């Protein structure tokens, strides 16, 4: 039962990442709806931000895998 706490840690990291992704995606869609002509730039920024956030979440998940 050593892996249990690590799994909880991975789950917590995913919750945080999910909230972050929701914020990024929601705000980006709002921005595109307000200014459809800027949709290209907004999409690029959205993916970039999502990638940064995903990096943080992945570090947390990998730490929880290795630091069991």
């Amino acid at each position: 039962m050593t892996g249990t706490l690590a799994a909880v840690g991975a789950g917590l990291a995913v919750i945080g990442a999910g909230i972050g992704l929701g914020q990024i995606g929601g705000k980006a869609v709002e921005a595109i709806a307000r200014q459809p002509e800027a949709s290209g730039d907004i999409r690029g920024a959205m993916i970039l931000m999502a990638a940064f956030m995903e990096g943080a979440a992945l570090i947390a998940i990998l730490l929880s895998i290795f630091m069991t």
Partner: protein
Amino acid sequence: MLRQFFILSCLFLSTVAFAQQHKHDHGHKHDGHEHNQHDGHDHSGHNHDGHSGHDHSGHDHSGHAHSDSGDGHDGHGHEEHKNNFVTDCGTPAQPHHHHGYDPTGTAIHHISDANVYTIMDMVRIPLPAIIYNKTRGLEFFSTGKFGAGHHDNGHYGYKDYVLYQGNIHRITCADFQGSDHYDVQGFDTAMIKAKEGKDIEKRYAIVNGKGYLLEQKTIWDAGLLGGGPSNFIDLSPTKNVVSMILVSLLLFLGFRSAAKAYTTRAGEAPSGIQAYLEPMFQYIRDDVAIPFLGDKHEKFLPLLMTIFFFILGLNLWGQVPFLGSVNVTGSLTVTAIMAIIVFIVTTINGNADYWKHILWPPDTPLFVKIILIPVEIMGMFIKPLTLMLRLAGNISAGHIAILSFVGLIFIFGKAGASLGGSLTGTALAIPLTLFMMAIELIVAFVQAFVFTILTASYLGAATEEHHDHH
């Protein structure tokens, strides 16, 4: 779409048939090796009683001498493994058939690199092995010598090398005398509790009825994956290396014909492979390189394009079903090298402004500087680290998800024991795997794009000319 669905369904049903065969396989996997050949190396001094009967059905391990195992492992509160060898070398042992299905082990095995290129557990392409060890120096041979079978376990050994789960292992025992060709009856593992509380898997090859401790190749992974220096270094072109060479070759041929088309068909609408590559190339140039790098984009365009198409090509190559499902971009070593290249290029091209922002951030009070400088220096290394982890994590996660869904067939089918369960598992696995494969197709593009756009943004930050500070 419907046709693809039909084809995939047929393939999955063949998986069920395979699962049934899998069951039978366990029954007589080592039939061909029941006769001990004792060729050249006589272990008459050892106790042969334990395996005289070769009773494969009962798995009776009563012949093992467990006399002093009590103080060996019980002291750690560890449940004694059925096959805990008292000593690691030359203990009598029988091939142990692990019944049931191990989803985690299977997934890890399938996403790992290997010394043979296996297609659908049927076609095994032997690869050259280049091994360096301290006692004998460099050694070259073909992994075809191992006669890999089910689970990519070798049926034969070469010198003191054996093939376990597709990877070359070395028998470390001093009293072991190998030859150029000897039978390996099977493999076994035992979980040993290490003092840090981590379980370490010990692997054994069973030769002539005796278990011999195996050592894996040297992996410098800071002990995270249980690696470290061992007694040999594997320099072989593995499955991943072969895939990288193949994909690079395909990319080279594709881009050469596209490049040629611009001179032979100048002014005409793009066609053929050119029509596929041009939109992607333009997208990366116009939406990634130019916004982040501005005037300097031409200098870094070759790097960005190479990164993008190399990652994309390998991502897609790994997703072709039943073609080995190589996990190259999901391998940390490959992404680590790419991240190191990005780190070196960024650091070399960093201008005075970039270093000033890291080492002495302008227009910030001193107490903020004290916090900011270590954070910025850490950031220099965290950036490539996240590049490495993100790509490997995403691609590996996709492979593991697909493998887990395919594994449903084996879980419901009780590793081939129940046909109804296998069919239920198949009915579940087909839509789930189709869905996952569609997602992975998007992920293949997105991750290649993300790696490229982040590289461009790091390079852009390092080469930015002027800042207005207010």
